[in-house]
């Protein structure tokens, strides 16, 4: 019984560590000209669900997504936004098919996302941490 509980606890720690590591791998990026240096998870969620069109502090925001089947997007939505792919599709279907809003534009891969964010002052995107270069600024999550 003791061995069983220990195994379960070890598995829980490993799962937690793996999830934390995955979340850490995906970072939010903005244009270097953006004065913002950090955002709350709640703000990120509102922007990516189309409920807020402005950065904290007032600047207009244009969020961008990665392709639907990409792993980076799966991690971003499940860890940061808290919605699975099918729940997200149902959520956006209710907005799209009533004309109330459309999902973020899609940039195909980290390279395209970095290039777009580097050029677009209103951009908000996400990439793997190891893809980040000097052309963009990484936002800290509060």
């Amino acid at each position, binding site marked *: 019984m003791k061995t069983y509980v220990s195994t379960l606890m070890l598995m829980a720690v490993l799962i937690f560590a793996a999830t934390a590591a995955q979340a850490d791998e995906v970072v939010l990026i903005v244009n270097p000209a953006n004065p913002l240096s950090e955002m709350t998870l709640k703000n990120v969620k509102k922007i990516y669900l189309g409920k807020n069109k402005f950065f904290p502090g007032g600047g207009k925001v244009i969020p961008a997504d990665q392709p639907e089947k990409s792993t980076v997007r799966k991690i971003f939505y499940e860890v940061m936004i808290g919605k699975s792919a099918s729940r997200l*599709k149902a*959520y956006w279907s209710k907005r799209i098919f009533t004309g109330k809003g459309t999902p973020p534009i899609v940039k195909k891969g980290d390279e395209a996302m970095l290039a777009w964010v580097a050029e677009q002052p209103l951009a908000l995107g996400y990439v793997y941490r190891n893809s980040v270069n000097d052309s963009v600024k990484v936002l800290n999550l509060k």
Partner: protein
Amino acid sequence: MNKLGRFCIATLCVAAPFTASGGEIGEIQWHGFLTGAYMATSGAGEDVHYSGDISDKGTTKDTRLGLTVTTQVDEKWRFAAQMKAKGVEDYSMEMDWAYATYDYSDGFAVNVGEIKYPVGLYNEYAEVGYTYPWIRAPEAFYNQNAIGPNMTPISYSGVGLVFTSIGDETEFDFNLFGGLLDVPDGHLNQLIGAKLGFNWADMLRLQLSATTGIMEIETGPRAPMNNKQHTTYAAGIGLDMESLVFSAEIGRSTMGVDRMKTTTGYAMMGYRFGDFMPHVTYGHWDVNGGWGQEEITLGLRTELTSNTALKVDVKQVTPGDNPNDDGGYGLFNTKPDEDNVLIYGVALELVF
């Protein structure tokens, strides 16, 4: 489609090519939905049809396709339009809705054009089967009968003022709208309505609404409603947890004719087991004249992919005892052979 809707589409078509600039403002987004459905009754009898088209012979008339186009013209103006082709309308492509939105701020927007009637939790996207559990939303509440509280899934032509307040987890919206609404055989003129909505963390939704207008139906069995005031009140609650799904709505309508007064409602509960969601719904449509109906639906929704779902529904409908002025019972065109009629169906839902 009226002149206002045509104006919105024309503006969209003219403006879009000039504003498109490879992303964000001016980007045109196309989306679509597809429902492939088969439904049949069991025990209704020969020449007995339910809700216009379902009979013992079966039908695929709930099959439909929709295309939605949206564009953000500038920081304030958005245009959106939806076209649909339905089996029940011989697949002729028609405009479902088309309207322009002026986003005055994050908290206030004005809609102008042909806009989906915003009463009921599901009415605004009633055509998009992927967004709800059943093959058809509960017909005790969502039917096209002009005497129900949710008179029609057809769009109204007019103006809507939308006030929104978004907190960390909560969201309030207030929609004040007015214009003209088409109903079967006529119109509801001088429509004025208000809807108050509350959303908590996309898990709990509450909705209250009230609408009133002057009915214009000059011919047919509903002619007694002509020039009478039609007033409806509706309330709804929707709960969508990780596993548990629940929704319930109730509505009451008066229309100046005592025997047409109605009270209607339903309650649905479902539970997600991974990609499978069995659900059960009870609905009741009570009409003073006695031709309402009771319905119990058992269904199973299966997520096939992140944008495709398969649904199987079995519904038992028990129509009221008295015929209406058309000779119909509930949503049956005439008295069915059996007191309880089974309606079963299968549907494949896709959004893209």
